[in-house]
């Protein structure tokens, strides 16, 4: 990024700005997210000032930062967005969906440009010339009537460079743009001082114009009327007055056509005031002082000294602000800190070790005589409690609300529904539900897929919905809730649902074993079968086809499950159940020889003692066991892991039924050791991928136990 300083100003600098890039990128990302959210929530008919101001502020902040840090392409684009948003918040333009579209697209482009800057691949970002032009067209097309033409912008440097206020510039432009003669009426005033303060604005601000009180018998006591001559637009005036009186208290009327007014020569005094506004030289340099203002450096030349002193020192007294502090739209920075995820993970790891050490101590202390070691044992039980609390608190650091995932869908659905010509409402529930960050990242894609499917294939075209007696606009609901130690995420739609008969027909066509008497739940599960997903399915059957097997696989890999309910004609629901975190798992420990293995408790169905008559051999090394009229393949863990056995008389005689990918198998083990929460350690990153093993953990006694990959074991049984 050698080019980053190109725009940061003429004078050389000793300060390396690049150290602030990262903060800026994160902040700009947040601003873009927020802007997108607000744009999507914007009600075009009833957009209020607070919303529009909030969106404007987002664009404004990004522009400021981008210009400062020298990302001129981002600055230029966001500057355009800002000027459009400025018109909107000033009510010079009415928001339309075309504007929202172009702003959303621009936000995307800005995001992409920022990503390029971040990765150092400048020049590969999207072209923004078209967007810039479109925004410009919107701004110009409707703004023709607005008095101050938008400042022409050739480059971001120019865009934000100050317009130097030379003594001659203001009056000249006032003449050129025409002085308007207005009747200003301030009504329902609380104090006369408010009106005085407004009148003072015209004295304080050179070039604003002249104001004369109008005295007429029909003016109420809490009312003031002024005769105003100004070149500023009504909106600019209202903005200025807003510091003193509420907008609804102000009424501005055109007094008479401008053309009939004799040209007003600028008075000698007003010229003097203007000279004092800023020293021309520093203004060109990008700063200026108000002469006579508190703390301003003493001007050297005597000409400026005759200038009317700025009333700053006494003015604030009279100008007590009536503008309500704008709470809302943009929250002040929340009390949070940013921490690298690696630091959090290290913390979690250390707490994991601590938990293990604590478990070890607890185990070793069991043999101690409570009468002799009472104090030690009390201390150990305190340690137990504190360790668990600590673990819980540390784990919660990684927990982030589902709203992070949910927030990306309104935009996606809006685009998709627009493309498909459908009408869709998107409802979210339980956005505050928290989930481990690692899981959130991994669940986003499957959820995206499900939501897309609902919109693409579930919701019908508006006319079809009307014909079916449904509201024209479909609804897709995304909800999240905690249930026990899991989180359940549901995608519901009120579309056409799935057709049982079509799925069965399709399954037969593909040579799958199905029967008409299959329960619904099993029929719906068919769509998760690999290969069931074809483009044909998408159009023929109600089309949940594409990639559902991938969705299922991804969720299963997270130790989660997927269930489907559907009613033809009424819609469907996909429920995804996930563990709250990947770092801690409820496990069942089983013993084989001297080894201990952990099974994820979520996949354990039942366990029982082997009765030899239930096991039948189907040929070499292939055995099945009959459990309540169902035959299940038997897998001997001893053979899978080639566990050395020193006591040759001992054989595995406990059976554990596990379920994964919708099939069940029986594992043969020596003994069941119990249930416990285990801290999952990744084996791949520390060692390498081991077949049939998903991870490892350290047991209370310090031994390492492997966590079994039940899905892999089930797959193994199929061969």
């Amino acid at each position, binding site marked *: 990024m050698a080019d980053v300083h190109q725009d940061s100003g003429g004078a050389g600098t000793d300060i390396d700005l690049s150290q602030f890039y990262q903060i800026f990128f994160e902040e700009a990302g947040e601003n873009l997210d927020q802007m997108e959210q607000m744009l999507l929530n914007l009600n075009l008919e009833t957009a209020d000032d607070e919303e529009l101001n909030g969106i404007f502020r987002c664009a404004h902040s990004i522009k400021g930062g981008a210009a400062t840090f020298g990302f001129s392409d981002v600055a230029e684009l966001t500057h355009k967005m800002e000027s459009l948003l400025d018109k909107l918040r000033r009510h010079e333009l009415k928001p339309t969906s075309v504007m929202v579209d172009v702003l959303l697209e621009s936000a995307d482009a800005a995001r992409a440009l920022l990503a390029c800057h971040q990765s150092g691949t400048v020049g590969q970002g999207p072209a923004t010339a078209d967007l810039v032009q479109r925004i410009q067209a919107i701004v110009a097309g409707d703004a023709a009537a607005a008095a101050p033409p938008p400042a022409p912008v050739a480059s971001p440097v120019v865009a934000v460079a100050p317009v130097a206020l030379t003594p001659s510039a203001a009056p000249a432009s006032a003449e050129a743009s025409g002085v308007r003669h207005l009747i200003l009426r301030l009504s329902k005033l609380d104090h006369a001082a408010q009106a005085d303060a407004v009148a003072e604005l015209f004295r*304080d601000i050179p070039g604003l114009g002249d104001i004369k009180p109008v005295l007429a018998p029909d003016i109420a006591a809490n009312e003031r009327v002024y005769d105003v001559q100004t070149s500023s637009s009504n909106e600019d005036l209202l903005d200025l007055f807003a510091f003193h009186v509420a907008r609804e208290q102000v009424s501005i009327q055109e007094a008479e056509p401008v053309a009939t007014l004799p040209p007003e020569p600028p008075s000698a005094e007003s010229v003097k005031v203007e000279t004092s506004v800023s020293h021309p030289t520093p203004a060109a340099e990008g700063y200026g002082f108000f002469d006579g203002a508190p703390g301003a450096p003493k001007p050297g030349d005597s000409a400026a000294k005759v200038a009317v002193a700025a009333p700053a020192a006494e003015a604030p007294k009279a100008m007590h602000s009536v503008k309500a502090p704008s709470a809302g739209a943009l929250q002040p920075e929340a009390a949070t800190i940013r921490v690298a995820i690696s630091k959090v993970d290290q913390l979690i790891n250390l707490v994991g070790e601590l938990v293990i050490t604590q478990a070890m101590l607890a185990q070793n202390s069991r043999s101690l005589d409570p009468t002799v070691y009472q104090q030690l044992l009390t201390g150990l039980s305190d340690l137990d409690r504190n360790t668990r609390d600590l673990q819980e608190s540390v784990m919660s650091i990684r927990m982030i609300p589902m709203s992070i995932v949910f927030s990306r869908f309104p935009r996606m659905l809006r685009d998709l529904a627009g493309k498909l010509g459908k009408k869709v409402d998107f409802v979210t529930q339980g956005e505050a539900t928290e989930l481990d960050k690692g899981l959130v990242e991994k669940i986003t894609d499957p959820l995206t897929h499900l939501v897309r499917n609902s919109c693409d294939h579930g919701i019908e075209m508006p006319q079809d919905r009307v014909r079916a007696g449904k509201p024209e606009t479909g609804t897709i609901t995304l909800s999240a809730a905690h249930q026990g130690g899991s989180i359940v995420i549901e995608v519901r739609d009120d579309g056409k649902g799935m057709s049982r008969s079509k799925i069965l027909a399709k399954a037969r066509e593909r040579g799958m074993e199905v029967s008409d008497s299959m329960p619904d739940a099993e029929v719906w599960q068919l769509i998760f079968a690999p290969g069931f997903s074809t483009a044909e399915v998408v159009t023929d059957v109600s089309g949940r086809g594409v990639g559902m097997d991938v969705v299922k696989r991804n969720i299963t890999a997270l130790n989660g499950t997927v269930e489907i309910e559907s009613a033809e004609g009424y819609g469907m629901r996909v429920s995804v159940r996930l563990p709250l975190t990947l770092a801690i798992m409820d496990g069942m420990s089983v013993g084989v020889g001297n080894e201990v293995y952990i099974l994820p408790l979520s996949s354990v169905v039942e366990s029982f003692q082997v009765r030899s008559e239930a096991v039948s051999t189907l040929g070499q090394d292939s055995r099945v066991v009959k459990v309540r009229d169902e035959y299940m393949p038997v897998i001997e863990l001893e053979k899978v892991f080639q566990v050395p056995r020193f006591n040759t008389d001992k054989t595995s005689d406990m059976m554990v039924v596990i379920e994964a990918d919708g099939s069940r198998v029986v594992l043969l083990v020596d003994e069941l050791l119990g249930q416990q929460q285990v801290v999952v350690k990744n084996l791949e990153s520390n060692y390498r991928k081991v077949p049939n093993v998903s991870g490892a953990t350290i047991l209370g006694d310090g031994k390492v136990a492997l966590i079994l990959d039940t899905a892999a074991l089930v797959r193994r049984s199929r061969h």
Partner: protein
Amino acid sequence: MAVILTVDDSPSMRKMVSFTLIAAGYQVVEAVDGVDAFEKAQGQAFDLVLTDQNMPRMDGLGLTRKLREHPDFKSTPILMLTTESSDLMKQAGRAAGATGWLVKPFDPVRLIEVIKKVIK
């Protein structure tokens, strides 16, 4: 050592301004918006206030007006650091009681130069 109150809702801007000021040997107190700044100004005097204009809750103009009402800030230099470079905005800043303005984006060296003009 002079103490400067810097007010900006953008963390990157705030960090950069602070860094620049600290590197130049000033002490810095940061505030995230006008409301925060005004609270921080209670009970602590500053040699200079450097404020952004466009901020949530209370903008730079609002802060300037509030500070000028405060006896400790009658004559404290208040610089508006702003991208709003329009004349009207400058005039509004003047009316609010600001000492001067500095346009964003600014050069760090320029910032220090300007500050040296108002802090003796």
